[in-house]
């Protein structure tokens, strides 16, 4: 049914007659306008990558990073309203640090996702607030191994082997499925170093040169190589992955 003009879509505390919360659906629209964010769970860690769209060429190169650290071992990549992302990041850091205070051990990605999703869900319950315009990927390595979760504006969260949010997520997910299905077929799982290249390739593939603004590729990982800490992917590897991504893109064009 149509939402606009019915009056059922003005507040998140109002259901439509068929039981939908339109304000939450609209919040998802804010996510779809943002540059894509991709997370991939590998055998030896997790890799996060975002397409950082540049709304001005006067922006400082390499600054204004979109992936945040929540704890030593957990990274967060959000797609949607930037300010909401920063807010959730700082909430995440508070949760992680309070967990350490209480239990004297690092929070698992699962528990952190659970806490943050509950926080997001609260913003879908009251007319006095709006939902977060945000889909968030949480990746990390904890005592249960490499983990990747995605939290949506509704407050729902699922664990993933690979996930993409933001503009062009459908195409990105198709590509990710190809990678993940290889593992399902009994082939060995992907390593973080391979994943860096795959994510770079997918982000370049999803980016529309004609329609979209310029972008910078931003990638972090949590893996054995980084001491299981959340850290930027080393510059040389990133450059290599970017070059390979561009080459793959041109190759793809020739085939077309």
């Amino acid at each position, binding site marked *: 049914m149509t939402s606009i003009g019915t009056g059922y879509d003005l*507040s998140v505390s109002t259901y439509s007659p068929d039981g939908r919360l339109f304000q939450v659906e609209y919040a998802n629209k*804010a996510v779809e306008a943002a540059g894509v964010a991709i997370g991939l769970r590998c055998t030896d860690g997790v890799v996060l990558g975002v397409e950082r769209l540049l709304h001005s*060429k*006067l922006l400082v190169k390499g600054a204004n990073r979109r992936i945040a650290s929540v704890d030593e071992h957990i990274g967060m990549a959000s797609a949607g309203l930037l300010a*909401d992302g920063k*807010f959730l990041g700082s909430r995440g850091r508070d949760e992680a640090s309070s967990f350490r205070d209480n239990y004297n051990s690092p929070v698992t990605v699962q528990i952190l996702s659970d806490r943050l999703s509950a926080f997001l869900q609260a913003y879908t319950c009251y007319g006095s607030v709006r939902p977060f315009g945000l889909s968030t990927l949480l990746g990390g390595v904890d005592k249960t191994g490499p983990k990747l979760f995605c939290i949506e504006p509704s407050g729902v969260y699922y664990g993933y082997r690979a996930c993409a949010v933001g503009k062009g997520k459908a195409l990105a997910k198709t590509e990710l499925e190809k990678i993940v299905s290889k593992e399902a077929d009994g082939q060995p799982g992907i390593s973080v170093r391979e994943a860096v290249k795959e994510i770079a390739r997918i982000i370049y593939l999803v980016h529309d040169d004609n329609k979209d603004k310029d972008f910078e590729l931003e990638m972090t990982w949590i893996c054995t190589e980084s001491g299981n800490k959340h850290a930027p992917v080393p510059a040389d590897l990133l450059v290599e992955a970017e070059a390979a991504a561009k080459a793959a893109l041109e190759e793809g064009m020739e085939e077309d």
Partner: protein
Amino acid sequence: MFRNSYDSDNTTFSPQGKLFQVEYALEAVKQGSAAIGLRSATHAVLLTLKRSTGELATYQKKLIRIDDHVGVAIAGLTSDARVLSNFMQQQAMRSRMTYGRPIPVARIVQSIADRAQTNTQEYGRRPYGVGFLVIGQDETGPHLFEFSPAGTGFEYYAHSIGARSQSAKTYLEKNFDSFENATLPELINHGLSALHDTLQQDKHLSIANTSIAIIGPSDSAIEDLAISSAAKRGNFRVWENEGVDGLLRAWRRSRGEPEDGPAEETAAAPADADADAAAAPSAEEGQTAQGSEQAPAGAPAGGEDVNMEEQ
């Protein structure tokens, strides 16, 4: 009354996922007069165009010192700016008191961005109606940030906000490649040229309407160190009124213009805006849309740290 049913409060998303109240707040920033910021490898500068509401009013200041190493230029609602800059001053002081560390520029910007975000998510609040250009210097060198009511703080090589700032942006985009290695006088000249581009046809930069803030090592060729200890230490300092005269002259010389400023200014303007009349009525009133920085201000000052004026 409303443009559509989704723009009456800040807790409602439009079907396209937009927050109209936030976008309208961004318009409030454009109502303010222009502010420009640039940075090089060694310096960060702010240049602003001051407005006066009438012949009896002085020009409203647009530059606020936060700490020795941080200062802001404002565009939009002055009262909102005062609340936020006050908060920044507290944050800066807190960092110095607890850690003995000048607060990192990115963190102080993020602290007001976080406050602004809250105002976009809770009913009964409105987004702030002011934008900042923040310059500062910390362990990672000089910086320029833009703070906006949307709750974002982006770092730029050069940027402009406020009325007709697009013209300045065009200039900056054309020239920003040369900013990194520019000297302080070169940087200021670029800034003044960009600021000049925000003026209407018959208007000019004068000592009455131009103010400049600098962070970074001083340059005695263009700055009067005798009256500014902040300049001597490379701290945030503001040059305006007589203090900005030398900078304006140097800029005009660099453009091959008469050093005293355009002669036709006196003829074209209904009220005189002579270079020597700091508190004189000016030609710049009503230059653009309704001014929001319209409070009468304190006495003119040059070179030393600026304080927040009382109202």
